[in-house]
């Protein structure tokens, strides 16, 4: 499998790897995928009182494309309002990373992860 330069760049130098304090009500966690499927993505966002994403962190168990998709996504969502962040489409990620058709589901996973993280933080804040 040949990877695009962008996938390799994110894979070699993943942005925003890490963990946020899940007990905080300003932190939303989206964990998607399953070990049995070969991919698990954990995406966390920290929002301010206006719902703007101040920080984002991820960890991903999965192929290079899954790692790159989640790394890219953390870059994109920072500074965005959660309402905008949850509009990000997997096709945008796939296009930016030039993912081949068999790797589209890795970007779908990233879209699912941000949606789940936004849902989580909304739940915590009761909005």
């Amino acid at each position, binding site marked *: 499998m040949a990877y695009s330069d962008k996938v390799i760049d994110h894979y070699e130098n993943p942005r925003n790897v890490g963990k946020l304090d899940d007990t905080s009500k300003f932190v939303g966690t989206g964990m998607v*995928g*399953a070990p*049995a*499927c070969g991919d698990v993505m954990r995406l966390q966002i920290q929002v301010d009182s206006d719902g703007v994403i101040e920080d984002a962190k991820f960890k991903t*168990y999965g*192929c290079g494309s899954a790692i790159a998709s989640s790394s890219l996504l953390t870059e994109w969502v920072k500074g965005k309002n959660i309402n905008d962040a949850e509009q990000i489409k997997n096709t945008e990620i796939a296009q930016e990373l030039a993912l081949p058709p068999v790797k589209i589901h890795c970007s779908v996973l990233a879209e699912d992860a941000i949606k789940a993280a936004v849902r989580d933080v909304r739940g915590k804040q009761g909005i």
Partner: protein
Amino acid sequence: MTMPIYLDYASTTPVDPVVADKMMECLTTSGKFGNPASRSHVFGWEAESAVEEARADVASIMGADPREIVWTSGATEANNLAIKGCAHFNVRRGKHIVTSRIEHKAVLDTCRQLEREGFELTYLDPDASGLIQPEMVSEAIRQDTTVVSIMHVNNELGTRNDIASIGKVCRDRKIFFHVDAAQSAGKTPIDVEEMNVDMMSFSAHKLYGPKGIGALYVRRKPRVRIEAQIHGGGHERGMRSGTLATHQIVGMGEAFRLGREMLGSETDRITRLRHRLWTGVADMEEVYLNGSAQQSVPGIINISFAFVEGESLIMALRDLAVSSGSACTSASLEPSYVLRALGLNDEMAHSSIRFSIGRYTTEEQIDDTIKKVRRAVGKLRELSPLWDMFKDGIDLNQVEWSAH
């Protein structure tokens, strides 16, 4: 671009230069280009004698008579010819065949085809170390069983079955015994008499010979009869028609001659390299050897690095040419069926790498490999939410995953 370190010898091997030279002598006007079946002139006679010399070299790796060797295009064709040919020839005796779940696709797909034709198959599960035990075969045999097909050395794990004992079970019950020896020739001793084997498949390209040539051993005493799968000019005593590919055959003969000569010294050298590789990575946490530590050939070592996904590991190890047990693409999210048959869960199967060591592997390459593997596994675990959870003492089996 610097080429990666080649550690995929179980997939294929480069042709030994000695072999390539000998093949080159069978192609052009100055060489033995004749048709080995031409009986009326010296071009044919020369080619025929080269083919017969090669036949003797191949036969001697397994202690067979040269007349028991049938040339094929590889082990895939040999497996097809043996299993279909023997099952069809003996169809009046019965329609039951015994094989295992960890055979190569060339055996499994052949068996699937026979199932479509109305044969009944029993697929044996290996034990936890990847071995097929003689008792398993014995218990599976029925009144109407005609053929048992069990591989000698498994291509993913390197495990080596006790062929002699399985052969005895079959001989006692008068059932034809076929063995896929594609991964064992030149890697471990073979003796078709001691092992009670009736048919055995070989491939040249796993032993520093060319691709596209192989052989099937077919026992003469007591005689094993098989139905041809390819019909034509009646070559190879009618079992496999087609003009013999002199250069390919000569290449296989020379490769097998060298392989037999070097078996002892290469086994020692490769055993040391395997040990070096394993001890170099085994002290990391959560690293597991798949297969059998005792009953295997040294050249194949299959390791699971828990909490690291196989494809990303392969990507991190781009400077190494190795194989992964994972095939995570949207088309098939299936981990290796061999690892699954061992009872490995999907994660461990996804996390496995097969390293296969061969004739041109050096100590420096192994040391380099160890360094790269340690760095890659460390990095990917830092990236892995599963590793986090494991470190926090969470039992991953208790987590409710959103499978997709």
